[in-house]
């Protein structure tokens, strides 16, 4: 493989890893639990900024970048902090947005929060350097490893893969457990779930925090890789890319969502291959139209996605009780 190709493929793989982590988090919220979080991208941005300012070091007063809370922390700490900030940010936003039971109101509240967050980051130039965003973020372990640039690319692919595995272990255990079942029950009918003892507000907050942490982690991983992060990369429509990945891949199915996280952003890559045909601005617009059309087609014809949520089957229980004995048992005692 030529160096250019290696560079291209490894970049795609890192992006796939980042998108997979983010899509898993959104799947936990939307696909499994029915929480319509249109502010999802804000959590990714928060993680990205956190990781950035914690590796950039303190901002110099005469420098060209202005931001708060600069520090130089060693490798895994900025990513851990990014996860924590995403999760912690979910608490106040969740308290505002999750109070109402109806999910359509929630969706609107979250959309507004996403708009406010972009506005805030862009207009307060001292916060995270305004519209220019942060750049020249040092890549993790780059100076210690002393690899060739291609070597470092593949190192980052490995890092992203390892973090994906870790996140998968968490989402797999949550979705496959009785907790996951309660979350899906809540998604299907919050009223009925409450009527059998589920604390719906608490469960929603739980997935909000978990998903927020995953979004933050994905943001940190992305910002440290591309070494830059600006409000232009996290406008509210970006949430719809992840939403499309979840819907097209198969909401409620972690494997499907991983495939969706490859297909949907990969769509943009396809348009990149015919840049000579159209004006680059039109090609960007085409990408959005393509994602929108793609999503609509799926919602019409395959609303469950490419890999629909798995039907859970249970092994026979031994020994089955004889009918008479079963009927004689007092229920619920």
């Amino acid at each position, binding site marked *: 493989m030529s160096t250019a190709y290696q560079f291209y493929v490894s970049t795609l793989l890192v992006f796939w890893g980042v998108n997979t982590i983010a899509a898993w988090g959104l799947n936990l919220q939307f696909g499994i639990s029915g929480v319509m979080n249109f502010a999802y991208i804000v959590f990714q941005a928060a993680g990205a900024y956190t990781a950035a300012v914690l590796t950039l070091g303190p901002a110099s007063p005469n420098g060209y970048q202005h931001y708060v809370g600069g520090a130089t922390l060693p490798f895994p700490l900025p990513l851990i902090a990014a996860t924590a900030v995403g999760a912690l940010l979910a608490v106040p936003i969740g308290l505002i947005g999750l109070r109402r039971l109806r999910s359509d109101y929630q969706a609107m509240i979250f959309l507004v929060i996403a708009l406010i967050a972009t506005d805030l980051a862009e207009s307060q130039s001292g916060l995270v350097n305004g519209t220019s965003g942060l750049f020249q973020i040092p890549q993790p372990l780059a100076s210690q490893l002393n690899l060739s640039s291609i070597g470092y690319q593949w190192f980052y692919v490995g890092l992203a893969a390892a973090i994906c595995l870790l996140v998968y272990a*968490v989402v797999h*255990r*949550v979705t*496959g*457990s*009785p*907790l*996951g*079942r*309660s979350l*899906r*029950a809540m*998604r*299907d*009918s919050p*009223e*009925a*779930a*409450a*009527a*059998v*003892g*589920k*604390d*719906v507000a608490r469960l929603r907050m*739980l997935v909000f925090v*978990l998903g927020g942490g995953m979004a933050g982690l994905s943001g940190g991983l992305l910002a440290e890789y591309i070494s830059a992060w600006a409000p232009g990369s996290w406008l509210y429509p970006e949430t719809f890319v992840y939403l499309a990945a979840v819907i097209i891949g198969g909401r*409620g199915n972690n494997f499907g969502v991983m495939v969706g996280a490859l297909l949907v952003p990969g769509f943009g890559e396809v348009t990149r291959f015919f840049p000579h045909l159209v004006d680059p601005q039109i090609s960007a617009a085409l990408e959005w139209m393509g994602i929108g059309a793609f999503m609509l087609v799926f919602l019409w014809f395959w609303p469950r996605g490419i890999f629909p*949520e798995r*039907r*859970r*089957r*249970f092994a026979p*229980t031994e020994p*089955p*009780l004889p*009918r008479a004995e*079963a*009927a004689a*048992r*007092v*229920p*619920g*005692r």
Partner: protein
Amino acid sequence: MTQARASSPLLMVRDLGRDFGGVRAVDGASFAVYGNQITGLIGPNGAGKSTALAIIAGALPPSRGSILFEGMEIAGQPVHKLARRGIVRTFQLPKAFERLTVLENLLAASPRQRGESLLGSLAGKRWWQAQERDMVRRARDLLDRFELSHHEEEYGGNLSGGQKRLLEIARALMADPRLLVLDEPFAGINPQLAKRIGGYLEDLRGQGVTMLMVEHEMAAVERLCDSLVVMAQGRVIAQGSVREVRSRQEVRDAYLTG
């Protein structure tokens, strides 16, 4: 019946009130539900039955009044807390967990699951699967009883209206109810199924499950209920056995003038 009456009631509703704007949907209702009985809550449309039921189940906070359940004040507590205390309701339009299988619908209702907390779920299968097996067994017993066993792997959303109603009752039982609150269990189902459901409810009473039931189907009410509470215009106008209540002039007036 008279013996059961002598014991203290399981549920005691006193001067319950609920306003919607200027409308007093429930206006000082008082009644009692005794253990091991089926109590029917009846009355003309707009009498406040459904509102009273929603308040008892925790879906609506009362504007005033008190509700004692097993001697404890519970008025205004949220639905899930009441469910954990043992007040479990069904809905007028059955609400199945549509994308959960029939068996999972029951499992989801099981209380105190080890794998239901975040840490419990992260601990992995070995932490919760023994309990899960017991739960599956119990859920299958219930499905068998409600003749839903052959639909075990079907999605809740694919069941017929009548089957959903059966599923909802089975699911409620899985949640360990001490008081089962049924919101029109006979509405909109065919006579054979109504008969089956009636039979199940009688069996449940025989096993010591207390029920409070809002119902319009008077034939079913008269056949099943040990005790009736009649509401009209937000107030309780009569409480007693079916025979006692039927003889009361104000009950006839309320139904005739509606």
